[in-house]
């Protein structure tokens, strides 16, 4: 049974329709990625699942229950806009937030101590958040999200604003949580992060879910129609290629999506005439490429894709 089941939800704010007829299911024990450019409606969908916003129509169920105040405490939610009370002590704050999620004071205190110890932050208990560095308060934010030990975790753009150390730590935590049988939903507009972590994805564009399913299956369906090429020398030959789309271009690297079944050998020949080739590899398309070919080049703002 799906842990989170979203059926035909719609949500408008005035004239703008943020979410249009979106449905998806998240199976238990999986990492589910909600992908799409900024403003695609990901955060609105997540807020509806968290019962912060109410959908205009459609239903969302968590573990078989319609979203409500009760389902809120089954979820650990880290919003994109993160923050804590600056003038409150770390310990008190974590206990308060865990209590709001339904823990008793004693349980909340125990969990707070457990996680602070685990993150080697025991001494911070009596410090005010305002005294902590940014990286330190990010750790406290994680603890606040997970301390009440829910079985569903939702992270909205979790990597934005994280320093590399905390970014790596979050990845480890997410995978560890999944391995323990928990379900994780996270959203991002940075596709490459998802490729390494997600089991299932749902692509959002302009409020609609345009593509969803198992990441492996989706990639296989698109086939090995992409070339990763590494070279040194004159890169101008890339511009002369026809019927291709070039992603992730840099001075000595390009990801070339081959359209119209053109022979890849021809591309290799052209490349060899102009530059020294270090690597030429036929691969499955990247998620960015999948996203572009799904929604069409004209329908997206490429600046918003990572």
């Amino acid at each position, binding site marked *: 049974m799906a842990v989170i089941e979203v059926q035909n939800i719609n949500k408008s704010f005035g004239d703008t329709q943020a979410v249009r007829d979106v449905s998806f299911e998240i199976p238990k024990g999986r990492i589910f990625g909600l992908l799409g450019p900024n403003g695609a409606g990901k955060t609105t969908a997540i807020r509806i699942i*968290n019962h912060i916003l109410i959908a205009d129509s459609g239903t969302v169920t968590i573990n078989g229950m319609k979203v409500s105040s009760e389902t809120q405490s089954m979820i650990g939610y880290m919003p994109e806009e993160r923050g*804590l009370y600056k003038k409150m002590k770390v310990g008190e704050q974590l206990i308060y937030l865990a209590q*709001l999620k339904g823990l008793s004071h004693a349980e909340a205190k125990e969990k707070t101590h457990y996680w602070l110890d685990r993150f080697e932050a025991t001494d911070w208990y009596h410090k005010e958040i305002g005294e902590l560095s940014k990286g330190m308060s990010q750790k406290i934010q994680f603890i606040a999200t997970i301390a009440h030990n829910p079985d569903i975790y939702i992270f909205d753009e979790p990597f934005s604003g994280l320093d590399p150390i905390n970014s790596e730590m979050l990845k480890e935590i997410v995978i560890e949580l999944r391995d323990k049988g928990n379900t994780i939903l996270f959203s991002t507009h940075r596709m490459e992060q998802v490729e390494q972590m997600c089991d299932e994805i749902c692509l959002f564009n302009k409020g609609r879910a345009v593509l969803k399913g198992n990441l492996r299956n989706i990639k296989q369906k698109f086939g090995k129609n992409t070339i990763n090429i590494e070279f040194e020398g004159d890169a101008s030959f890339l511009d002369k290629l026809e019927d291709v789309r070039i992603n992730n271009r840099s001075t000595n690297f390009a990801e070339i999506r081959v359209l119209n079944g053109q022979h890849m050998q021809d591309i290799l020949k052209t490349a060899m005439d102009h530059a020294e080739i270090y690597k030429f590899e036929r691969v499955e398309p990247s998620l960015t490429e999948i996203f572009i070919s799904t929604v069409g080049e004209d329908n997206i703002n490429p600046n918003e894709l990572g």
Partner: protein
Amino acid sequence: MSLHQILLVLKREYMTRIRSKAFILATILIPVGMIAFIGIVIGISVWDSDTDRTIGIVDQTEVLYPRLTEISPERYEDFSKIPQDSLRALVQEQEVDGYVILNEDHITGNANPEFVSGGSGGLGLQQTIKSDLREVIRNERLARANVSDDVQKIYESQITLEMRKLTKEGKETDSDTGFMTVVGLAMGFIIFGSISGYGGLITRSVIEEKTNRIIEVIASSVKPIELLLGKMGGIGALALTQLTIWITTLIGLGMAAGPVAQMFMTPDMKENLANADQAAQASPALDPEIFSIPPIDASLIIYFIIFFLLGYLIYSAIFAALGSAVDSEADTQQYMFPIMVPIFIGYFIMFRAMENPDGMLSIVGSLIPFCTPIVMITRIAITDVPFWQIGLSILLMIGTFIGTMWLSAKIYSVGILSYGKSANWKELMKWIKE
């Protein structure tokens, strides 16, 4: 709605604030500041009366000047020997504040004396000179008319009004209107100050959660209405705590003043142990009651708490909505004005109610829910307000609170999640309709 969640929010709001330096400082400094302010006002008036004015008197009657020096030996100076030109020069050089030439006509005829001054002194001085001159001329006329002692006594008699108050129980007591007016004004002023002060605190508290971006974490655990009620409750409890501290301190000081005064007396008395008994008897003579506060009706205190709470609730709901609608404290200005207008109207009607508590303006003002808490408590303290008016005003306030709470909940639940810019009036209307 879950009471458990509301209480958690309430407890946090209360506990984090009551331990804050700001609260402790305000609790101590506001009364100290008020006492200092009163002290300064008294100080100024004392210091001010010290600036003596010198009025030259050219007394051609030779009887009026001595009478003037009887009334005020320092103010008037005999300038009879100085020629008028020099007098003018003295005024122009500001050596004297002015002069008056008095002659027989002023006593026998109906001519009015003239006060020539350099323009200094103001209305107060003119009033004083007028009444002084009126008195001496009248007395001189009476003396010359050879009226009987009886008639003179009539003129000398000072009529004052003794204030007595007949209670409902039929007991006649000394009227305490003067004292109760002060109490009523103080209560109205406290409600006025608390509504604006604690209302501002609620606004800041809501904005803080928005700018800290913790609001979404909280919103994923608590309903907006629970958060709103918890916040209003927590800060309301804080306001009550502060009031309780102030009132008990005041009553405590009032009760302690008598015994403390006695304590200071005792060392003197101890010098003669043999007289100890007498001392014990003597000390009640120094009535400790002088130092203590006259009794205030328990019902007045209960009304004070009721009006304070209802006023706080009506306005705190509005102030919370305001906080949720804006993105930073600087943006509160455009909304703050319309909220403060009724509070200030109430504040001004309060002063009218002090003079004429049963006048039309006072009655109407005390029945307009946005002004009621400030005006009604002043009226209740000063006069006997008919019970139907009190009851009606309370019902109207409860109704108004339900209204502001409903509006506020609508605005608040949308406002707390909209970051980036402050809402304008049009958007607010849209949120309410949603």
